[in-house]
């Protein structure tokens, strides 16, 4: 089984889907890099290298570098989607959502519903997210709760290279608008990734570990934080189930509830801000549906309700880490004693 990086897995997904379906195009800023300049073509292949090589393979009509005009090209991607293409548009940093959110949440997300079921909008918007790279407040946010909140959007957050490729292929083949979020610190992580094309269904959580004492739910880069915590807890005799929902919308509530039924305890690790965040949503859901099986309060490990700071010590304190998860699990294990 070949081992590939998260970045390479995404690149492969794009290559394979663009080869399979001529209606698939990619557009965004510097997705090749060097357009109009005198030097190297495809100089960047995307700000994080995810789209490298696509220009050579598919040409400039299908691999489009755009001016820095998110509202125009994200809106154009929406318009193209509803008229017969399958565009994959990139917002370089999810933080730039602000300048094009209307096209996403008022246009693309709502065409199908407000046009009475006749529109099909097979749009994918890829965006990088996440703190930890010392990129400060406007280049480090998570923001997936904002998308999850919008009916009509699907929200995908892969945590491994295997998941990244399968979920991106699934997203491109999906006929609804999909926001595909890539944690920027995961691009260099590696894992087994088959050469074949494959898909992973949405609303299908990955159960990474099974244990009977506590259920830990985590997405994106927080999955590895949860797994580190689970390994450490195992040495104290506390066995944790770790679930990665993989898609915030649609959400695999069944698996979460199934696992909480078995353990009676839930801790959620999430790097989005706490107010109206992803963890808050899952906590409310479980509290409503599984109240009687809970042995203790549902605990959320999230950043504080602040922007992302710049100084390394502050940013490290901002992000959830395994120690905080372990402390939370111990706390809920001790509840009632």
């Amino acid at each position, binding site marked *: 089984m070949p081992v590939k990086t998260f970045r390479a897995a995404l690149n492969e997904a794009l290559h394979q889907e663009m080869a399979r379906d001529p209606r698939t195009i990619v557009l965004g800023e510097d997705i090749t890099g060097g357009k109009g300049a005198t030097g190297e073509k495809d100089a960047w292949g995307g700000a994080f290298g995810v789209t490298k090589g696509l220009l050579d393979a598919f040409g400039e009509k299908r691999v489009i570098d755009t001016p820095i005009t998110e509202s125009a090209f994200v809106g154009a991607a929406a318009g193209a989607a509803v008229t017969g293409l399958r565009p994959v548009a990139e917002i370089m940093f999810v933080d730039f959502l602000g300048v094009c959110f209307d096209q996403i949440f008022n246009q693309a997300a709502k065409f199908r519903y407000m046009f009475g079921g006749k529109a099909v909008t097979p749009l994918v918007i890829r965006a990088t997210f996440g703190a930890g790279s010392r990129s400060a407040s406007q280049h480090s946010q998570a923001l997936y709760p904002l998308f999850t909140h919008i009916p009509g959007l699907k929200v995908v957050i892969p945590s491994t290279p295997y998941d990244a490729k*399968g979920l991106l292929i699934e997203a491109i083949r999906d006929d609804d608008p999909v926001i595909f979020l890539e944690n920027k610190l995961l691009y260099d992580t590696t894992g087994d990734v088959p050469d074949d094309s*494959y898909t992973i269904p949405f609303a299908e959580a*990955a159960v990474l570990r099974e244990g009977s004492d506590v259920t830990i739910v985590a997405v994106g880069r927080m999955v590895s934080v949860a797994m580190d915590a689970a390994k450490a807890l195992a040495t104290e005799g506390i066995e944790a189930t770790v679930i990665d929902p993989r898609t915030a919308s649609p959400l695999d509530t069944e698996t979460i509830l199934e696992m909480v039924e078995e353990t009676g305890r839930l801790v959620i690790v999430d790097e989005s801000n706490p107010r109206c965040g992803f963890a808050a949503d899952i906590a409310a859901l479980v509290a409503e549906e599984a109240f009687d099986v809970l042995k203790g309060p549902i605990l959320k490990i999230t950043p504080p309700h602040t922007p992302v700071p710049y100084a390394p010590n502050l940013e490290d304190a901002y992000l959830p880490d395994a120690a905080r998860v372990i402390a939370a699990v111990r706390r809920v294990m001790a509840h009632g004693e």
Partner: protein
Amino acid sequence: MTDLHALPMPKWGMTMTEGTLVDWLVPEGALVEQGQEIAEVETTKIANAVEAPVSGILRRQVAVPGASVPVGGLLGVIGDAETTDAEIEAFVSARVSISAESDDETPAPRLVETVGGPINVLSLGGGAGIPVVLLHGYGGDLGSWMFNVDALASDRPVYAIDLPGHGASPPRAASELADLAKAVFQVCDALSAPRVHLVGHSLGGAVALTIASTKPERAASLVLVAPVGLGREIEAEYLTAFLAADRRRPMKQALGLLFSDPDAVSSDMVEGVLRSKRRDGVPQALAATLEGFFDPASGQTQELRPALSGFDGPVTVIWGDVDGIIPPAHADGLPKTSEVHLVPGAGHMPMMEAASAVNRLLTAHFSSADRSG
């Protein structure tokens, strides 16, 4: 002279790095026979029993039930009555301080190029003996033989293959029984194995029978484990549920039907099957394969008893006596030259559910086949 033997956590399958001791099956101080099952171990893939490597007294249960032990780590100590506790302590400390090797020598499966396309093969063993080719069943993969490959590899090459559209083998456009048999010929050619012992489970058994009837010169002997092709009846629920399942819960339910204890199906096993099935082209290939041997109205459509009767070489038939997929009664009325063994308490996967028993049957079959071949 004291004689102490370590009981290590075994390695089952390529990806296993640790196991959990579920429980001891004998108390400390009990006399155990070599081969006797003395501990129940669970991995992320499956649960199975660990056998005593030697006869003696189980002097120390080092691991406690529920403990996670790395592969190679110390589960217990077998010795004689004379060994002192102090010597046992010393042995245990010394053993525990040896870090478990990450077993880089364990072979990994690899894609073998054949004239019809790549086939994933796990190759073990070696030597001059006639090779054994292991053929899994519908929806399975070479991991079905994870508890068997090591036992067979001591004196001959062992090839566990993923049939087209299964495991890591790409799907093929043509995937009915004859096509699967052709794939096996192709991979045997690629492995320079013109004549092999065929061990086939379920659909793999039907593939083995097809080979035996179309190209008997390539089959040195047959071991059929709950094979397709010897009767009409087959549990449609498994077939349709497996084909339809593209998510964890329904797949777990479908796979549970294969075992006498459905809890034997772990998340890892389910994930492995799903990963294979989610590849492009695989669901279509699996549907075509199914149509090749099953009709919802009439059940199994391939009549392979004549193939069995017509085969000259040694034949062993193994069946779990509580097989809920294909009834063990299909083993009735076979030619007297076929050796039929029922495995008590096993469902449709006796080679996993009762691995030690099946390994003994397999080893005996090959010894006998070598002598007569």
